[in-house]
């Protein structure tokens, strides 16, 4: 039995969207749900990661693979030295992809490298957003983060030399050697989402997670207990930004072409906020469920598009915004804690605690060896 290609395409699309929104919402949950930083500039880290992938990694590869790439370009009758990375983007990326297609190892190396660099850049951007945090109250900080992110967004949107401005640029395909990459890559995304989930669960269940929560609940009390509140916020936002940057890179490798306009505040900050509030702040599983609910609403509407659109005087796709917005308002009023509410802090089992206490208790009696030594 063979599965029709459009079904695979649809499944791949669902998997990709779901993993992306799960990753991004988990990152936001770490910053807002656990640490209480109202980050309305999340799309900056995501765009930053995508821009690193498209603008920097592409250029580096153009230089690093110069010999192989220029041979292919010359075969096409072009002088590689004359080509501009942005203006002649399509041919250059095609040539690079042709080189990657011959070497899986190179492709995987590029993928990992891009994710790392994009993550680090995203972390830097996330850290940048916390700079005004010490001076501002929640609602002002929310506006400040939004404004900073909008500066970054507008520069990339209009500055042609970075990622092609309003036209956008193509992204190298690190899986060019894989014929079924369109079916396989969403699995990579799902794996990445699972990894992020486990990472964040590890962080928030560690003592560090309890410190972050204390910063969120009462920063004065937290600083009285000796915790550096500003450092904790910076750390949380940097980790959140790192994940955002990785998400941007992963998404760029999925779409294989980026344009700043597709990384706007509605898609990558406002919708993730809705998902986090919907799923449950400070509950990672809840946030993943929130992302799932969003995708289900979205796909259900797309499913009915063909039957309803000829009948209705408007495009059904817009109902998605209507539904998700109304759903969120209803949730805020009737169930503000979200689908899954926040759980109490996870601690070790009682037996475990007592065993550890027993082990770490200083012995009052000398061991036989020590007696002998005297």
């Amino acid at each position, binding site marked *: 039995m063979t599965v029709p290609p459009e079904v695979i395409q649809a499944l791949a699309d669902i998997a990709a969207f779901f993993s992306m929104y799960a990753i991004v919402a988990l990152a936001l949950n770490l910053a807002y749900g656990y640490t209480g930083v*109202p980050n309305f500039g999340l799309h900056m880290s995501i765009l930053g990661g995508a821009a690193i992938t498209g603008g920097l990694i592409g250029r580096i590869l153009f230089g690093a693979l110069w010999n192989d790439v220029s041979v292919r370009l010359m075969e096409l009758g072009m002088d590689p030295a004359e080509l501009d990375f942005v203006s002649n983007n399509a041919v250059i990326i095609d040539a690079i992809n042709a080189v990657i297609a011959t070497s899986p190892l190179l492709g995987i190396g590029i993928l990992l490298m891009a994710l790392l660099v994009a993550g680090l850049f995203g972390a830097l951007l996330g850290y940048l957003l916390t700079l005004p945090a010490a001076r501002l109250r929640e609602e002002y900080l929310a*506006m400040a983060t*939004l404004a900073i992110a909008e500066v970054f967004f507008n520069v990339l949107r209009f500055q042609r030399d970075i990622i092609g401005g309003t036209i956008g640029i193509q992204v190298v395909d690190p899986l060019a050697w894989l014929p079924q990459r369109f079916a396989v890559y969403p699995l990579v995304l799902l794996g990445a989402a699972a990894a992020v989930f486990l990472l964040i669960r590890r962080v928030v269940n560690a003592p560090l997670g309890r410190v972050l929560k204390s910063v969120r609940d009462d920063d004065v009390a937290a600083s009285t207990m000796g915790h550096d509140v500003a450092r904790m916020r910076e750390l949380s936002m940097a980790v959140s930004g790192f994940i955002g940057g990785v998400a941007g890179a992963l998404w760029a490798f999925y779409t294989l072409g980026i344009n700043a306009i597709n990384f706007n505040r509605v898609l990558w900050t406002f919708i993730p906020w809705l998902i986090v509030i919907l799923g449950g702040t400070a509950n990672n599983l809840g946030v993943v469920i929130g992302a799932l609910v969003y995708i289900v609403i979205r796909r259900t509407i797309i499913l009915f598009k063909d039957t309803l659109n000829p009948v209705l005087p408007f495009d059904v796709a*817009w109902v998605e915004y209507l539904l998700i917005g*109304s759903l969120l308002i209803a949730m*805020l009023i009737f169930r503000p804690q979200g689908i899954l509410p926040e759980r109490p802090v996870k601690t070790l089992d009682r037996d475990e605690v007592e065993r550890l206490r027993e082990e770490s208790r200083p012995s009052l009696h000398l061991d036989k060896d020590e007696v002998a030594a005297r």
Partner: protein
Amino acid sequence: MPIVDVQMALNAVTYSSIVALAATGLTTTFLTTKVPNFAQGSFMMVGAYTAIYVALKWGWSPYAALPLSALLGTAVGLAVYFLVIYPLRRRGANIMALMVATLAVSIVFIGVMNIVADVFESAGVRSRDIGLSFLDYRETVGPIVVRGVYVVTPVFAAAIVFALYILLNYTKIGIAFRATVENPELARVMGVNVDRVMAMSWALSGMLGAVSGTFLPVFLRIAHPNIGDDMLPTIFAASVVGGLQSIYGGFIGGYIVGLAETIVTRLLGEVIQGALVYRYVVSMAIFVAVLVFAPRGVIGLIREGGRKA
């Protein structure tokens, strides 16, 4: 040719007046409810699409849409208050919950306005990527094209501020408004119906947003259903730069940010090649600088300066 010519100044002042009106609306609700309203841009779209419908379907002047947009804007403002803000406040929601709720309202409006635009289109009213500037009165004086919107918008903005001044200083509801802003608990004790004042502030905010939005398609050559949302950061910037502590802050900030976006960008364009596209970068940079160095805005600076002296 001088860098700043008359034509440009006219454009700049008109744009600033639109921003100032919308920002005054944002400030009004911030003063009473203490929440930055992410749906302020949505209120503008209500006005913009009323103007488009009135002008293209009924063939009236777009300015004739002003009373209708004011009415619709008031209704939308009240609807947002009674359906979203009031139930949340009654359940003791904090500022973050209220803020996310206004965010959700703006998301709902993305859907609603696009559906409205689609329905208009199928009713034969062109409503995507259409401006109404071709319907405006225009007079050519030498090299300058004077459009009706250059006169109507600033005059209207000034009239609104004057009306607000009268309302706040010489009417009972205005004094109740100021009392609520100053200290809600005390105002309640003194017999002010705080809920009614809040409802009024949301109605006023919806009206101001819709009115400023009415001028938008007349001023711009192209309007689309997300045009108000696109202006949201600018409106935030205007309110904060002017100062969120005073209702006139939005007005002052509107002109500072509006003029900065147009004239400063133009001046930068003379120095740096291709800086013209960075108008939002200029306003956002001012916004961030004000937030970090003087979060109380221009009005706050004036007041603090007065206190020290």
